[in-house]
């Protein structure tokens, strides 16, 4: 028996090492209140404390840490986007990802796998070529590859996809990776916590208090807090918060569902995405296949899952990978995706002074966790949008200056 364990057993006190400091009451005021203890909110808190020295911060969360879309996504990390704004932004994120495990002293299971976006039509081959060229221009490892290369990477794939959607090629992005999503929230949360940030779970926002167009505080289910700055990072609940401030936005909420298979021996190294078949799939460190498809077809503020989703995703999956016909699905779930018309996020300042928004993350938010935290903390600290997020401004719609990223969405939503 290890000596430490014996000593622990014989001790009178059993000090339980806690991941997070428990806090009783909310203080009456903070410099910054962050709504939402998901990856984005906690990353913003972490960088506010670490890089900007702002530690009088409360992160308030209606549920529990990482229980929203941070814990509901399919954990894919990539930077092969379509617009220069998108490519530069996500590339910075991928760079940040690679050092996080060391930063946190916590294993994120960050695993570089290579990412194939399969093309089944001439039109999608054209988009892949376009994306590859934009990516290469910005120094990102991204290229167009042909069926022989793909077949070599995944020998068991049916390259004709049951005969009706033959694979003509793919955009191959070697740095494409997966990571353990819960650990990301925990790592950022603990890092922020250690620097003095308070994380309050089970605390719901009831209203945002303003005076003459300026934020003055937040009314919560556990009392009122005074603060000069509020950062809202609540994904699917964004429209509800914006309604409290009377702000209108183009964000609309559709559920996005996902499921995992039983664990199996490692056989799938790369991440596969097919826009035409509405499928993305990767294999986790413990052998489960994580699978997702496109958005549910209509607005719904709920995380219910449906049998139709499992059926149609499984059907497409078996067309691509016929050997999965006997594999069992063990879990399915849904998250509320906050979509924007141009498939790019909405980040930065808003018409309400002191209210900062990190939203519109729809189906592409997990991979942006580190860079969102970094750029939003800069924006909050300096009251000025970080240069990397200027293309994602709240007012771009009324200026008709959209940042069209739909072509780089993982599947055709």
């Amino acid at each position, binding site marked *: 028996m290890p000596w430490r364990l014996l000593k622990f057993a014989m001790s009178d006190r059993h000090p339980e090492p806690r991941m997070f400091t428990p806090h009783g009451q909310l203080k009456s005021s903070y410099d910054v209140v962050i709504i939402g203890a998901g990856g984005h909110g906690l990353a913003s808190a972490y960088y506010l404390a670490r890089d900007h020295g702002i530690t009088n911060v409360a992160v308030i969360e209606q549920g529990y840490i990482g229980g929203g879309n941070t814990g509901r996504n399919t954990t894919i990390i990539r930077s092969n986007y379509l617009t220069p704004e998108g490519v530069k932004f996500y590339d910075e994120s991928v760079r940040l990802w690679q050092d996080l495990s060391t930063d946190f002293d916590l294993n994120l299971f960050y695993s570089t796998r290579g990412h194939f976006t399969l093309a089944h039509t001439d039109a999608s081959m054209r988009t892949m070529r376009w994306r590859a060229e934009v990516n290469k221009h910005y120094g990102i490892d991204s290229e167009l590859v042909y069926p022989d290369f793909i077949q070599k990477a995944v020998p068991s794939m049916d390259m004709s996809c049951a005969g009706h959607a033959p694979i003509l090629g793919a955009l191959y992005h070697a740095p494409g990776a997966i990571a353990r999503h819960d650990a990301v929230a925990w790592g950022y949360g603990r890092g922020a916590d250690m620097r003095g940030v308070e994380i309050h779970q089970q605390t719901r926002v009831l209203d945002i208090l303003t005076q003459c167009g300026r934020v003055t505080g937040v009314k919560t289910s556990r009392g009122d807090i005074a603060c000069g700055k509020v950062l809202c990072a609540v994904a699917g609940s964004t429209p509800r918060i914006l309604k409290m401030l009377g702000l209108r936005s183009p964000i609309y909420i559709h559920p996005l569902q996902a499921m995992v298979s039983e664990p199996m021996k490692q056989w799938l190294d790369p991440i596969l995405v097919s826009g035409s078949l509405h499928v993305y799939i990767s294999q986790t460190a413990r052998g489960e296949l994580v699978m997702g498809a496109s958005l549910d077809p209509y*607005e719904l*503020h*709920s995380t219910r899952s*449906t*049998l139709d989703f499992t059926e149609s995703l499984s059907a497409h999956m078996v067309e691509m990978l016929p050997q999965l016909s006997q594999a069992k699905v063990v879990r399915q779930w849904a998250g509320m995706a906050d979509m924007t018309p141009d498939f790019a996020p909405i980040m930065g300042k808003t018409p309400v002074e002191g209210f900062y928004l990190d939203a519109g993350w729809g189906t592409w938010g997990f991979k942006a966790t580190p860079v969102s935290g970094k750029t939003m903390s800069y924006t909050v600290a300096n009251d000025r949008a970080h240069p990397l997020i200027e293309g994602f401004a709240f007012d771009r719609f009324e200026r008709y200056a959209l940042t069209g990223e739909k072509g780089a969405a993982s599947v055709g939503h």
Partner: protein
Amino acid sequence: MKIMTCPINGPRLISEFAYWGECKTMPDPAASTDAQWADYVFNKSGAPGIKHEWWCHTPSNTWFIAVRDTMSDVIEKTFLYGQQ
């Protein structure tokens, strides 16, 4: 599967229907400012609630309005445009 009632064809599977978004009133394009037009084109009442929405029963191409709770997904009623 979820069932929706088409005002012409009666109760059908939800997969036979296409969602076309919330009913909005178009401002006069000639008289509205760029900002008003952008608000009409882009902005939505994103928060959950009971909303009037355009739906289409695709096999029969029947366009109609559904009153639906976007939180619970309960469809309160469906009717053809101009009826109630």
